[in-house]
């Protein structure tokens, strides 16, 4: 196997059309990933927000993390055996696959959101309540925005894991990029396997870059610290930083009048 054979595989027009073409497999793979993440977020956001906000049932987060140790492939077969006979369509395999992937996605999402809310400055939370925000307002206007950086790193790590693990859907006769790996293994077509792996890796990298861009856009500069750097360099250019702050400059003793 040489780079040339890999190149030949990718440039073969047959790979770019039809049901087993790259575009279709990619679309299937993305669909599994998207469905998984949406369901995962629907579970993790309310649960993580509730645990973080109230500080109750923290063991849920620890418990969810322990679930990461369960082997995905084994779980997939187990769930398929139980669920499969109950459903009379393609969903018999789709549902178990999604269940397994969701179980994989929830722990990082949950820990991210929970840890993000947990790390909010207690003084900010106290001030928010003391100014008359309701619990819901404290959560949505202070805690969640402040939790965004950690929540998004949870999302990034969940996305990477789901994209990588969605390949196992192919082992229960579903589509996605995993087909190249499973079929390649079955027919000893190692070039196909390598090319499938490359596709998965590239997809994961692209998704991660997109999420990094989202993070940059969505997180307040006050938290990410980006604006701090910007403002400092701007002020030092105009010489503002070198000038002592008139507000905080100590007064000299000889001009101070101690009235008390």
């Amino acid at each position: 196997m040489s780079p040339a054979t890999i190149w030949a595989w990718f440039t073969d027009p047959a790979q770019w059309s039809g049901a087993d073409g790259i575009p279709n497999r990619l679309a299937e793979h993305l669909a599994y990933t998207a469905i998984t993440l949406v369901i995962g977020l629907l579970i993790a956001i309310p649960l993580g927000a509730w645990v973080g906000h109230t500080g109750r049932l923290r063991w849920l987060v620890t418990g969810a993390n322990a679930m990461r140790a369960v082997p995905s492939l084994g779980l997939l077969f187990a769930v398929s055996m139980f669920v499969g006979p109950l459903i009379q369509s393609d969903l018999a395999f789709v549902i178990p696959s999604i269940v397994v992937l969701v179980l994989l996605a929830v722990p990082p999402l949950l820990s991210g959101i929970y840890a993000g809310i947990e790390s909010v400055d207690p003084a900010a939370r106290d001030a928010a309540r003391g100014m008359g925000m309701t619990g819901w307002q404290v959560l949505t206007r202070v805690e969640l925005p402040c939790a965004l950086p950690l929540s998004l790193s949870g999302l990034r790590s969940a996305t990477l894991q789901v994209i990588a693990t969605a390949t196992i859907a192919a082992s229960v006769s579903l589509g996605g990029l995993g087909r190249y790996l499973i079929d390649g293994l079955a027919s000893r077509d190692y070039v196909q396997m390598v090319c499938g792996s490359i596709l998965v890796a590239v997809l994961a990298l692209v998704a991660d870059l997109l999420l990094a861009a989202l993070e940059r856009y969505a997180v307040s500069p006050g938290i990410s610290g980006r604006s701090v750097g910007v403002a400092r360099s701007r002020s030092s250019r105009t010489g503002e930083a070198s000038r002592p702050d008139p507000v905080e400059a100590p007064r000299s003793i000889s001009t101070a009048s101690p009235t008390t």
Partner: protein
Amino acid sequence: MIRFEGVTKRYGDADSGSADGGSRAGGGGDQGAVAVDNLTLEAPTGQITVLVGPSGCGKTTTLRMVNRMITPTSGTISVNGRDTASMDVAELRRGMGYVIQHAGLFPHRTVVDNVMTVPRLLGVDKRQARARAMELIERVGLDPAMARRYPAQLSGGQQQRVGVARALAADPPVMLMDEPFSAVDPVVREQLQNEFLRLQSELGKTILFVTHDIDEAVKLGDQVAVLRVGGVLAQLAPPATLLADPVDDFVAGFVGRDRGYRALSFAAAPELSLTDEPTVRLGATAEQVRAVGSPWVLAVGDAGEPVGWVRAAAVDHEVTRDLLHRGGTVASTSGSLRALLDAALSSPSGRGVVAGDDGRLVGTITAAEVVPAIEARRTATTAGEVPEGASTR
């Protein structure tokens, strides 16, 4: 007016308020530990009432019960005649300014957005809230250009100013302040205190102020409530009375040393005949300095403001700022007896410098001349003629 009537807070019962309040006042979560014990107290409208005491005296718990961050075990707290327990809790809190030790600014919002918080909660439209916020940012002594910065870009003192502006944004009649100036360095703290007093003289809010620093309490309070461990009110009095007449050993010990001297802060400087002081201007020649014929000569600036003493023998060519003695303080004609005495004691020549309200030199006075005024005041006070708290603020 904030009124406490028989208010008790005992930790360990079902509703023990926030964990924060508990850890600060509870003493390690003892079952049934009393943080505040049968407190009856009135914080009068338009005045600053300071709660002061050692750790574990329940001062923060007391404050936090007013806006129901902590629920009292028994007793009632009313604000301007309304029982707080009967009010909607969000409405209650939005009607009170709340300032805490570490400011508690929202890190993801700019300064102006932080200040707009309560008006926005009350449904004031964005533009109006923003205009009000900008006005307050300037009012607390911040550069309007800071409005677009984030809290992380501000110093501790600046953050605390934003905290005060944010508490004032909805123009609440009542302010609750929990050690707002404790986390900044002493120089900044004094500035914040002075500006706080200036602001209060303009706004006349009803303020409940918690501190562990007796000097701060005496400086800021119209009346000071000293609490002892276990949340028992030891003494409630104007600061001058507290210094002059502590009710027991605990208060005397807590108020500290130098009480007699510090009490002079509350005695307005009487009209004393000041001595005219020969002066030289900055930049005067050595001959001009020696012509005064005194070992220490007072230098003044262009506007006639005293800038410092200079030792005649040390002047070779002309009087420069480098040669000025830095130790002397300047008293004001409208200041206190303490400032007057301090000016005399700190002056290298023994002659205390007194300036008018415009900052110009009026004259000098020696400690020996101040002491009779102090003695005269004692005689008058004993006869009950000088009102307590003849404040000089």
